[in-house]
């Protein structure tokens, strides 16, 4: 494959929201897929995850004559303008995250690919309900965009908590009184903030028993803080994401369980779906759920992981998998 020069099928624009590893690896996954399928991939960054920059990027992508647009929308259901802009310019668009039913029937919308937010958090909650007891605290990501709130709601459902799960404010009793939900702090998706949040929680609730962190970065930060406070043994830690350092935590045993997905696989599938759409193999306006694996120490090696794109064999393997199946009846339809 090295020798022969492929004629590019055109440039796919990739919207990169923020430089965090999750988005970076989503882009890396898309890159390898684009290469394999004969497209160029041009990246448009949005370092401060600002909606106005996202719109600007879409317009820049159109101006630059892209054949299609994919990548991350900065928030849940905040990309209306981007989609219309793409539609007006007749450029197909597939976004990772940002699903809203109202877009499904818009022209040139290939669809959305994202984890099922509520379900994703719920699995972890269910595991906690059956495996742990005592005081529970949650470290959320940045609130205000809906995703962090959604994961928390899902988790609380799974843990069988009683109260306004959408609002998610403690205190609540969960698992029929076996678990007391006592605190929630926001860790802004970041390690230092996760560290600080854990410090504050443990200071206020020295007898904390269960901690749920909405991503692995905050989990690592929180764990470091717990170690410094000699509380790591006492706390049953759970997390989400399946980042390399998260999976390492599961292997090492200080993360008891976590729900994992792979941004790289999301990116790869996004490009495959776009290619299929451009080749009229699929129709637009669908919602696709990302491939997720719930892991504990036992099955941790089954997680896809974020970095398979570095291994051509794995890339080839995932490129050969059947295309994602659209969700039969998406929420809100």
């Amino acid at each position: 494959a090295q020798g022969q020069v492929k004629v590019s099928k055109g440039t796919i624009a990739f919207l990169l929201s923020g430089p965090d590893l999750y988005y970076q690896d989503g882009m890396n996954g898309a890159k390898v897929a684009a290469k394999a399928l004969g497209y160029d991939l041009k990246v448009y960054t949005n370092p401060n995850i600002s909606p106005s920059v996202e719109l600007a990027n879409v317009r820049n992508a159109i101006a630059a004559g892209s054949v299609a647009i994919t990548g991350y929308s900065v928030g849940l259901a905040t990309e209306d303008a981007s989609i219309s802009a793409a539609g007006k310019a007749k450029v197909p668009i597939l976004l990772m995250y940002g699903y809203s039913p109202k877009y499904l029937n818009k022209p040139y919308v290939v669809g959305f690919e994202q984890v099922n937010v509520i379900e994703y958090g719920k699995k972890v909650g269910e595991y906690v309900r059956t495996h742990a007891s005592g005081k529970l605290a949650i470290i959320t990501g940045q609130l205000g965009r809906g995703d962090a709130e959604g994961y928390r709601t899902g988790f609380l459902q799974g843990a069988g908590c009683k109260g306004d799960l959408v609002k998610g404010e403690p205190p609540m009793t969960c698992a029929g009184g076996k678990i007391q939900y006592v605190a929630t702090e926001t860790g802004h998706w970041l390690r230092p903030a996760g560290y600080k949040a854990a410090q504050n929680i443990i200071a206020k609730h020295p007898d904390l028993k269960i901690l749920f962190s909405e991503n692995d970065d905050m989990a690592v930060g929180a764990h470091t803080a717990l170690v410094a406070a000699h509380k790591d043994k006492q706390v049953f830690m759970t997390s989400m994401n399946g980042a390399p350092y998260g999976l390492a935590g599961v292997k090492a045993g200080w993360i008891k369980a976590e729900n994992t997905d792979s941004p790289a696989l999301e990116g790869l599938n996004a490009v495959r779906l776009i290619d299929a759409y451009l080749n009229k193999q699929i129709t637009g306006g669908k919602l696709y759920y990302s491939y997720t694996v719930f892991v504990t120490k036992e099955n941790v090696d089954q997680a896809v992981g974020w970095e398979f794109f570095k291994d051509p064999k794995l890339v080839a393997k995932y490129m050969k998998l059947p295309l994602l199946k659209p969700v039969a009846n998406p929420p809100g339809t």
Partner: protein
Amino acid sequence: MANVQLPVRPAEQPPPPAEAPRARVRSRLRNVDVFALWPVAVMLVIVFVTALRSEHYFTVFNFENILSQVSPLGIVTMGQAILLVSAGLDLSVGYNIALSSIVTGLMLEDGYPLWLAIAAGVGAATAVGFANGVLVAQNRAHPFIITLGMSIFLFGLDTQLTGGAPVNDMRGLYTAFGGNLPSYPPFFGLPAVAVPLGAVVVLAYALLRWTPLGRRAYAIGGNEEAAYLSGIPIKRTKIYLYTLMGALVGLTGMVLAGQINEASFNLAQNFELESIACAVIGGTALFGGRGGALRSIQGVALWGVVQNAIVFAGLSSNYQQMALGAIIVIAVMVTRAQR
């Protein structure tokens, strides 16, 4: 006036009549600051160079694209320029823009009429501006820290208000600012958001140049003590200026939310620093007395052109940031050099 009674001896009044006209011409020349136009020159160069590198660059679409990208930022920058002239500044604009959009958005969701929702949103932002003004004026505390505190406060308020999920349908506002104007003259299919920008630039220019309020802004920025001794009501003037900024922020909120059809806390991330950067790049002095609307809007234009060109230059995403940072530094160096 007193001097009328004075025995006037023309022969002895310097400057001698002969010199007067020349002097005046010279002064006129000195007052026209050709260098103030440097951003335009720089832009022309960038446009030319980039056009050579990408055939998609020099197109009407891309021009409209840049215009629609800078318009909301441009509106705030005008407000920021007015504050900078008076030796003030506002770091809370980002989350205040978000606030106005959220208030309006939530009311639209609850089915309130458009006009009422807009009034509430702009009103909220204006109230915040007023609060900033009162705090800055009453305590003679530095606006940097006051508005920073306000910004953190508003961040909490915004995220609290949107809670579950951001508003994703701005209804009438989207109809108004989401698209372009009719493509026939005099509209030429410009992005709708360009209209409020144009209006605000004119307003800001007129205010600073032709109104007593604007002149007072310069006086306070240039020497607050002297302004006070000249009987200028320092506090009231400051409160007016910050309240005006609040209103412009509210307008920006409507324009931006309409354009993107969203209301959320991160709607205008970094607008506070970007608007200050634009004004200063254009040649408005930080903390006092110099600069104006036209210089500042040039800064905005340069900002937009540069960001757009960097994308077309095909730099990898991270290098784009580095280039942007470098250009800000170079820009301000140039602006200084020409003083």
